[in-house]
């Protein structure tokens, strides 16, 4: 059977199976990484956002064969409950997560913004997060969380 090789959360992994299986299903079922959530199954809500070679993508729209030879990062690559990453900590302190279902995807998009040197301008952050739906927060506390993380990055040069 065809082997698909990918770097998943900084570890080399091999997937064997249906090459058209959705990336989200491979993550959740084959690698037991259930942090990535499905909200709509058609690329509209962004809950399933992961980073593919550093770019946010909807993992419900990507067949696993697309990830061959590439880097995939999910929420599990960030901190752990006892040791949150600076971005996660910002979301915790600023009220950026409520019910939490959009949170893993939101964090991955926010991470891409922070890494690419995105600005702290609230309007620019709103536009960048426009593909990640949240029904709880009204987004303001999410925007504040990203701004806080950007500040932490500049003050501490921490790995987000």
């Amino acid at each position, binding site marked *: 059977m065809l082997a698909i090789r990918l770097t998943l959360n900084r570890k080399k992994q091999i997937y064997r199976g249906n090459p058209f299986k959705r990336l989200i299903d491979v993550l959740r079922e084959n690698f037991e990484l259930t942090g990535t959530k499905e909200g709509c199954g*058609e690329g509209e809500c962004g809950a399933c956002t992961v980073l593919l070679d550093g770019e946010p993508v909807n993992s419900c729209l990507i067949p696993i064969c697309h990830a061959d030879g590439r880097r995939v990062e999910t929420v599990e690559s960030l901190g752990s409950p006892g040791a949150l990453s600076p971005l996660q900590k910002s979301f915790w302190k600023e009220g950026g997560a*409520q019910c*939490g279902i959009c949170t893993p995807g939101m964090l991955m998009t926010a991470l891409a913004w922070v890494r690419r040197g995105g600005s702290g301008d609230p309007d620019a952050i709103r536009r960048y997060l426009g593909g990640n739906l949240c029904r709880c927060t*009204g987004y303001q*506390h999410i925007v504040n969380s990203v701004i806080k993380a950007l500040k932490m990055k500049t003050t501490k040069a921490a790995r987000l």
Partner: protein
Amino acid sequence: MPAAGHNFLGTAAHFSTINAVGVVGTSPGRKEGPQKLCGVAKYIDDFVFPGCLWGVTFRSSIAYGLIKKITLDPAFPWEDCVVACAKDIPGNNFVSLIENDQPLLADKKTMHPMEPILLVAHTSRHRAYEALNYIRAEYECKEPVLSLEESLAKKRVIYGRDNVFKKFLIKKGSVKSGFAQADVIVEGEYRVPHQEQAYIENNGMAAYVDKKGVLTVVGSMQCPYYVQKTLKQIFNLPDNRVRVAQAVTGGGFGGKEEYPSILAGHAALLAWKAKRPVKMIYDRREDMAATTKRHPAWIKHKTGLTRAGRLVAQEIDIVMDGGAYATLSSVVLSRGTIHATGPYECPNVRVRSKAVATNTPPNGAFRGFGAPQTLFAVELHWEKIARVLRKDSLELRQLNLLKTGSITATGQTLSESVGAEEALQITAKKSDYLRKKKRYARWNRDNSRDKWHGIGLAVVHHGAGFTGSGEISLASRAAISLTRDGKIQILASSTEIGQGANTVLAQIVSETLGIPFDAVSVKTPDTHKVPDSGPTVASRTCMVVGGLLQCAAGALKSHAAKRLGRFPKNAKDWKTAAVLLCGKKPERRFEAGYKKPKELLWDDPAYRGDAYGVYSYAALAADLEVDKTTYAVRIRKITTAQDIGKAIHPLLAEGQIIGGIAQGIGYALLENSVFKNGVMQNSQLTNYMIPTSVDVAPTDVTIVENPYSRGPFGAKGLGELPMNAPAPAIAAAIYCATGRMITELPILPEKIAKSLEFTQK
């Protein structure tokens, strides 16, 4: 189990002053935050059950008719499946709610499209869905009733004798004499549509029978005891044989109040028959098309006022579309009816309302629960009145707002905590409402501009807790457990659905006991482990259940003090007290039960009296622009002040307010459910638009704290209030911008274009 026999709120308050840890009024990180942020919080779809089957639902494709025959096409290998229908139900085939008129599975007849008829379980989710294509249903179709107007016309009767699920009448004074005194009479008609809750986690449940024969259901839900009640009679089983536990829940907003009972029943029936665990997770299309929505409504106002603008008569007629079964329509209608006058005092009021049946999926609970519908009407109506009287609606509102001592339409005298005027004053000032209104009028007169500017106001209220005698019937209980090693745990069936219940309840207990916030844990709601604190609805969790926990914590503290000889001050004291109080048992529970405050009186048949223990109040200003070419509305700024008694956790409170406003913006401008033959046509997030981060504007929130003497630390209900204000304020702002009052939601660009086409050349 010692019961704290105090009035449900109040007597524990003095404990808060001793060893105060000062956590109430601060904003610690939410309790379950780290798990959610790391992706390790387990939502129902994240659970793995060995040997689990996937359950799917075969649904009615017609709106109304008889089910003549169901055939399983032999082309599909049915031996790999478990199939269940109404005949497999061991007990009663209905969902336990107010009228018990909704079957768990349709049998012989179907009342609406998407009604569940048959259930299929398979080891492969994909194959289970495929099996649905091999089920043939033969119907004898009947002419359906598809709209509120058709239902009112009674040409076809599908419920009772007149299609009416419930009627209410509220009377105060005499509208006849009121209109006789009036200098002006202003009439208006308003319409609001369905609204989808659109929680990002779809409904999902898993069911299995454990080794002891206990039917167990785990899933996404707001009300574990509601689910248990339905399961008990579906299976004819006692309490100890049916266990319902909540999984981490990805949003509810009312959408997981009553529907989870149905899905749990389905998963349980399949699991019962298959003798294996069964998981049912809806996809977005099924969730949107089959589950509940906000009731559409049609509201008429006739208002009499003096020349100066004082209200002398309000006559209001309301019709809500309940869908095919009674479900919660009577209580949604009740709340909508009571809130229909707005937060104003008028000597002569008559509100008549009815909820009617249509052959559409039943409408149900959604944040606000009837109030956003009727408050949209009354608030936008002020703009109409303002036009007639040539005054600003701000002035008219100020003249008529409820204040301490006012008497509401149900005859309730508001004795305390009435922050409507303060909220309006703050909002008007911070939004610079009056000056902007003048400035925008000048701006809009200049035809060279490519946008119109507008600002609009709304003032709303929301009654906290169940209506009337509802809290007495609920008889909620909540407990604190002290373990032998000195650990404190909250035991309540109030679910954390994102609103912050875990955190706020822990803050109340921490403050009352004088122990650190981190030392208080919250047990996951589970009908076999926690008492029934009532459903997680009606903005009641913090105020009512928080009050019970404050009381239980007070009882624990006084018992500990008695055994120890003084109030426990530190962890060591608590350990000593724990050993003394628990004896040889692993834990000791202190429970408090709801007791009606004696001054609250409600006459249900007459529908008069104290409808709620207290109301919360909010004012909101929407500042926006309308593009003259595309008619797209862009909200520039929202300013709001909300009187919630006391913000136990200011950051979470602000999150509730901004989140509720975002849903209100969606209701006002975007969310358009398109129905054809009773079926939602746009059951996708692609074509049913909810607000993105770009659609909602920066929001300036002021929390007003007019304490309620019976709320824990003064807190009142908060969850639903913010949903009530945005839509009328936005409609008023669009009127200010374009000169066109659009009285039907959602205000899509097409509607603005249409309203202007007769005047623009």
